[in-house]
């Protein structure tokens, strides 16, 4: 990294406290050896800059700045490999993505991809950044690039197929869901997707078949039942439809996605820890849930919601005394928190 760029990044860290900061110029921000030509490098790379962070919670601001400083430090280290630099860009991208700074996240992933063009993770994350930003065209291109590097990665196939389906390209969606099924025949998410594509094409019999298989593959995926009922209704099997409607639910099929999971950093905010804890609760991982709520309370000690959930996690993990203590604190701090009163009363 040139001295000029280093100064720019350092200045950025200070200026980012109050105003949007433009980073070093493009050449300075693109470290490492020249990557192999691909779409990321063919298009102009934007410098990675920090947005105005002031609307964010203070711990999140600190977290983002620390990650940005770490990136700057690494870029300044001539011994750092391109892969290391890509990872550091990616780590900042993950934070930006979690904080919903989608443009900045995309810029980070583009840099990462240019540094490590053979790593499918970067175009895959980039696709998610674009998708969340509402840019489906670029998301499609990015997912396609990721799939060129890892053709059988089922979650990428499903996300790509879903973007096709959103656009009304039902044949392309069907083909892509079929590719996913070739790679993983028992994927409930792929079967459900193929069923939805068939439903959109008014191919009700195939829709019913795919969705039946999806439900068999993942019986807890209760959201399948409603569209499956619609398929049965359309082919005149109203009894089946009625039964399914009574059993409808809101859980979509599971889509295990280790790559995306890797990107899910926990922002240092009460909401983020609460999300993490609630996910653990849903998965019946009581201890992990309690840990997440405790970490959240370290960030926001006065947060009654987190404390309420901590009480809940403690109760279900077999610690009613601990739960009662937390609920007592909640009703003392927030006397109108009705559910805490209810839970306390229940105990």
């Amino acid at each position, binding site marked *: 990294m040139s001295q000029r760029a280093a100064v720019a990044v350092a200045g950025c860290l200070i200026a980012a406290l109050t105003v949007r900061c433009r980073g070093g110029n493009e050449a300075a921000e693109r470290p490492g050896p020249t990557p192999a030509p691909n779409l990321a490098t063919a298009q102009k790379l934007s410098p990675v800059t920090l947005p*105005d962070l002031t*609307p*964010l*919670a*203070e*711990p*999140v601001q600190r977290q983002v700045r620390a990650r940005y400083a770490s990136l700057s430090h690494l870029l300044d280290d001539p011994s750092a490999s391109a892969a290391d630099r890509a990872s550091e860009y990616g780590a900042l991208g993950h934070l930006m993505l*979690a*904080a*919903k700074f989608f443009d900045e996240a995309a810029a980070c992933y583009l840099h990462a991809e240019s540094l490590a063009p053979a790593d499918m993770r970067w175009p895959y994350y980039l696709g998610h950044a674009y*998708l*969340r*930003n*509402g840019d489906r065209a670029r998301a499609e291109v990015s997912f396609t690039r990721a799939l060129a590097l890892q053709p059988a990665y089922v979650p990428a196939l499903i996300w790509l197929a879903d973007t096709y*389906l*959103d*656009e*009304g390209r*039902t044949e392309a969606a069907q083909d892509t869901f079929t590719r996913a099924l070739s790679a993983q025949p028992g994927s409930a*998410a792929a079967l459900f997707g193929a069923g939805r594509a068939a439903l*959109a*094409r008014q191919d009700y019999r195939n829709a019913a078949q795919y969705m039946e298989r999806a439900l068999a593959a993942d019986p*807890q*995926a209760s*959201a399948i039942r*409603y*569209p499956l*009922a*619609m398929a049965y*209704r*359309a082919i005149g099997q109203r009894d089946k439809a009625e039964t399914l*409607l009574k059993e*409808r639910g*809101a*859980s*979509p099929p599971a889509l295990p996605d280790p790559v*995306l999971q890797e990107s899910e950093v926990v*922002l240092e*905010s009460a*909401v*983020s820890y609460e*999300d993490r804890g*609630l*996910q653990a*609760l*849903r*998965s*019946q991982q009581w201890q992990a849930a309690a840990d997440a709520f405790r970490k959240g309370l370290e960030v926001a000690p006065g*947060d*009654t*919601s987190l404390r*309420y959930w901590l009480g*809940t996690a403690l109760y*279900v993990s*077999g610690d009613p005394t601990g739960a009662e203590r937390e609920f007592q604190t909640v009703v003392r701090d927030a006397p109108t*928190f009705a*559910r805490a009163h*209810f839970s306390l009363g*229940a*105990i």
Partner: protein
Amino acid sequence: MRRLRGRGAAIKLSLRVGPAALCSVFVLAGACRPDQKTADRTDRPQPLDTHAATDAVRAGPGASGEWFTDRAQEAGIDFVHFNGMSGKFYQPEIMGPGVALFDYDNDGDLDLYVVQGQMLGTGQSLLPLPAGDSPGGRLYRNDLEIKPDGTRVLHFTDVTKQSGIVPRGYGMGVATGDIDNDGWIDLYLTGFGRNQMFRNNGNGTFTDVSKTSGTDDPASWGVSAAFFDFDRDGWLDLFVGNYLNYKLQTHIPCFGPSGAPDYCRPSVYGAQPSHLYRNTGKGRFVDVTIASGVAREFGPALGVSTADFNGDGWLDFFVANDEQENQLWINQHDGTFVNTALAAGVALGPSGERKANMGVDAGDFDNDGDEDLFVTELIAQGSSLFVNDGSGSFEEASTRLGIRHPSLPYTGFGTAWFDFDNDGWLDLLAVNGDVNQNVKDLNRRDDPFPLGQRNLLFRNVGGRFEDVTNRAGKIFDLVEASRGAAFGDIDNDGDVDVVVANDAGRLRLLINNVGSNSHWIGLRLLGSQTKRDMVGARVAVMRSSGPTLWRRARADGSYASANDPRVLVGLGASTEAPRVRVIWPSGRAEEWASVPVDRYTTLVEGTGK
């Protein structure tokens, strides 16, 4: 319609269940399964794609080639909505306002009522109170002048002070209907904290009859309401859609994942039951919510549309609920209703997902003789298009028919089926505005309410839709937090204009410059005894060339708003005076052999054949 989970929401704890069974008592969205894929799918607005149009829509003379032009200010409408925001993110500040088009003085043109907010809580407002504006909604009288050469001079006069309409509370929406069959259209105002009924005295003034009418609901949060004669007794009944159990005193702060404060999702508060009132005569209502069966199921209601959805001749109604299943209440002909939304295919999204349903309208967009449904939704969900098979059973076809993809970047509110180019096919307008703050937009210090989005115009091309927003005029470039929208022929030139009510923004008067280039018939449908607009009446326009066009008289639909009750039917290039069949709400059917084109005709029940 929220993305944010409220803090302090929602788990039930029971000592009777062990950990393994706890899933069943979670009341979290998504229950016991990670909902990662869905939760990740949030989007921001993006510029619309430019779609090539299939053929030209001709611009009217003097219209600078624009299909719609905002003429609010030059017509004397200076209304600016005040939402009372103080930085505390109170829920009501993102939900209003609605607007109504109705001819309150029976002079033959549409007047306008727009709902106003007020300060919420005791904080300091982040927005200036509109200069010179007294609290409460505004009634504008339409003083349309049509010159001998056909030129129209549009002017509205603020007649609020002399009207006697004094709203109490924070205004949300408005419904219109003649509750006492005296030939003068009355006004029902929904609000956060209080709903009010105003009887039109027939002399330019209104009287608050909330209590005596039996429709007073002093602790409610009503949004959309609809008048319809569900029991065929000749008197307009009333459905009032209520939203959340919410009070400022128990407001729960909500935050985004990065810790920025924001508005909550509706599940944080829970739904407030809606009400169905039966008009027992002369504008006195009794609450039949329980007796009718409507109390059995309810959600956070935001939109309502009344129509005969199953073709049995009786009026049904659809309720759009925010992040909960919709209801389709089918009339049982005995004063009761049964919710068939699930079996009918209109309760949920095509993947079985609960959508944030907001505005709604029913109309026969495919000209097959039944009422289809269009529902506006949250950003990244895509608007819903439910196609009726004629029996009250629907297929969600938004993807197949070109609606879903263009609507994904937007959060929609007011909407209607309306044939803006008078080609005989019902088009769509959805007015949009976000409900969650985008963390990037928080940097826009000059805008304390950064929820603006563009509105969307879809043109119906033989039953499929193309996004023609980019060609509709400069007014469609605006980025505003639009909520209510009322549709009607404001300048009586034979095409449908639109009033758009913006949250914390100006009222827009979108005058249609293209529809009157095609031929049309306009119908006012009046009762035999009552001389009131017979909302709910269905009209079949039969032509020797082209399919029969089915339309209906209605004032409801959209979001928190009330439309022109007249029926305007586009005929394209045809000058043939069509045969018209009317099916009145009573079930009686009559025909008129030849209805003149390019003018309004009043059809009175009992005078046809």
